[in-house]
């Protein structure tokens, strides 16, 4: 075992000693290391002080009504999500249908100059390009998300 691995092992033993999780035999190993290394002893003392301070602290309790209303809020979220899906779906279908009808009307309008039709075509094409770009950006960003691996 090289010195950096040994150092890492001793650090872990220090943590186990602080948290009461030392296993048989490990205590003697740690004590032996502490005996010969004053820096390690000093570090353990500093860690003990940290542990002492954190042990003096606890959670701030939320108001009791939080627990009574908790499920209600979760339920409301579930319900709203269903509502949003239905609204979005309906909007998409209706908007698509309306747009299709509008395009057909305009395109078949003989009196309308060609440049207006082309401008309309350009506008729609631009909107599609922007939409695709945003979706792709989101997708690429999602793939590079450093916390992606957090979810099992």
């Amino acid at each position: 075992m090289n010195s950096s691995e040994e150092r890492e092992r001793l650090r872990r033993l220090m943590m186990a000693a602080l948290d009461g999780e030392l296993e048989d035999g490990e205590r003697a190993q740690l004590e032996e290391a502490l005996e010969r290394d004053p820096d390690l002893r000093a570090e353990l003392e500093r860690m003990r002080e940290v542990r002492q301070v954190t042990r003096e602290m606890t959670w701030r309790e939320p108001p009791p009504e939080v627990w009574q209303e908790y499920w209600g809020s979760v339920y409301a979220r579930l319900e709203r999500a269903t509502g949003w899906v239905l609204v979005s779906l309906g909007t998409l279908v209706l908007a698509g249908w309306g747009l299709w009808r509008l395009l057909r009307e305009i395109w078949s309008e003989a009196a309308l100059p060609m440049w207006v039709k082309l401008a309309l075509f350009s506008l729609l094409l631009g909107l599609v390009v922007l939409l695709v770009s945003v979706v792709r950006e989101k997708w690429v960003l999602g793939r590079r998300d450093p916390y992606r691996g957090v979810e099992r």
Partner: protein
Amino acid sequence: MEGRGVGPRQRARDQGAAVEADEQSLVERARGGDLAAFAALVERYKQRAYYAALGLVGTHDDALELSQEAFARAFRARRGLDPGRPFYAWLYQIVRRLCFNFNRDRALHRRKLEEAQPWLVAQRRASYADGDPARTLERERLRERVRRAIEQLPDFEREALVLREFEGLRYREIADLLGIPIGTVMSRLYAARRRLARVIEEQGGRKETS
């Protein structure tokens, strides 16, 4: 949502409270879309989920919102639930992901925690003052600095510290919850405590020079 009579939300809560089945059965029923069974799981784990989020984001309102959102997402993703695994371990993955994303977003938008009430307070039994007001104040200041230092810890270190110190989990439990080796739990704890030790040392140094 709820009318004058008993609404579906209330009904589900009442049914949820009445359910006394073991977790596996609740999970199986929740998987099938049974809201009452899911409500019972929420009742069972709401405090743990809330405190887990509080430990990771440090503000009451955000912790409440994120933990509730985690339950809502858990229900929407219920088909991925494995009745053979503890429900909380699965839920915790959603909570921590939401919290880490929230922290990242907060850092990007430079939102501050300053206005929020402290999420950690002194234990009632903590008494290190010996009746000396100056020592009491000094100790309070130290706790305040340490709390702020915890808020500045990298997510993974903060998480390990919170699970150990404030949720009281053992190394094996933390490792199982996070899906990492015990050695990694200890290394993260060491890194977190080393940073906190520097804060305490700085306070000590300032005291000496003042």
